[in-house]
């Protein structure tokens, strides 16, 4: 529940921001106007046409060497994009993974071709489905910290996002 309200607020904010950007500056949706609020970590980061929001990770448990990264990525443009992976000073690698249940068996796979961000749609990276994996984290993730990640997209290129570290059992809004 903790993340519910901020995420909804962010999605609304993201929508209104992109709406007002369209309204005020119809001709110019280039990367130039994107980084305006990049230093306020809880603001949606905009890059090209993608809208990223609600980025969070979880406090890691003792001994854990990996952490999941979760966020919503909206693509209001007319072209599909792909999330290929990323990098972070907090981890050796940042990969796109997908968790699936095959009957009672949990399967975890790296999505080597990345994750499609459909044109006019939203990709939800959430616990229990597709998500980012911070592999070989350099130190435990602590609740309340921010983890900087540079995501890499096939079309939108590199986008910096701050992931807020929530409690170790933080869930996405779908599960509430």
């Amino acid at each position, binding site marked *: 529940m903790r993340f519910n309200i901020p995420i909804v607020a962010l999605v609304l904010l993201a929508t209104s921001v992109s709406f007002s950007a369209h309204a005020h500056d119809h001709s110019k949706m280039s990367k130039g106007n994107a980084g305006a609020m990049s230093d306020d970590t809880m603001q949606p980061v905009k890059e090209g046409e993608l809208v990223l929001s609600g980025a969070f990770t*979880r406090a890691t*448990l*003792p*001994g*854990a*060497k*990996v*952490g*999941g990264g979760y966020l919503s990525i909206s693509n209001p443009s007319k072209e599909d994009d792909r999330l290929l992976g990323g990098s972070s000073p907090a981890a*050796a*690698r940042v*990969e796109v*993974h997908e*968790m699936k*249940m095959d009957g*009672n*068996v*949990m*399967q*975890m*796979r*790296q999505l080597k071709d990345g994750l499609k961000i459909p044109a006019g749609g939203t990709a939800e990276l959430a*616990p*229990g489905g597709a*998500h980012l*994996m911070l*592999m*070989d984290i350099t130190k435990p993730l602590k609740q309340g910290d921010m983890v900087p990640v540079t995501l890499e997209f096939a079309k939108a290129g590199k986008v910096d996002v701050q992931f807020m570290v929530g409690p*170790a*059992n933080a869930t996405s809004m779908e599960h509430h």
Partner: protein
Amino acid sequence: MNYRMLRIAVWAVIAALTLFLVFTYANTRFGDKAGAVQLGAPFTLQDQDGAPITEAAFNGHPTVLFFGFTHCPEVCPTTLFEMAGWLKDLGDEGKDLRVFFISVDPERDTPEVMKGYTAAFTDRITGITGKPEEMEKLLKSWKIYAKKVPTENGDYTMDHTASVMLLDRNARLKSTIDYKESPDVALKKLRLLIAG
């Protein structure tokens, strides 16, 4: 007349055999409903304090088994948090339960690693790990699927059965709690296990 009697007798035997087979099959196949199922095999492993532990640990108490690994990013922490929640909800009612977290990744999960990990959820869960060959025996005997899946840079993750197994006081499998089963159903199953 004798011939007719014989025919009836033969059919009666066939009917009895069929019933017996169907019942036996149902009992193993649908153990959940028809009764408890005997699984498991003797083993000698280590608990999270490094002390020896054998199959005897599953006897004499209603027992909860969950198989996973500490590098598990999602299903294990989620389930262990849920298990800690069930234990809290059961309170005194659940004090007779024994709860074990059994590693499917003994290469990385040493007793120390297991201890630090389980302590993050509750003090009621005991980790079990040990020699990989001996672990494999235990997993096989409980029909637990576990497979190493290589990732980049020589690293690996594990695919594994994510159900929680509920054993009666005689260490027979009584039922299971599946991943993402509702807390109400889980608690109902645990109460049945404790009562049974």
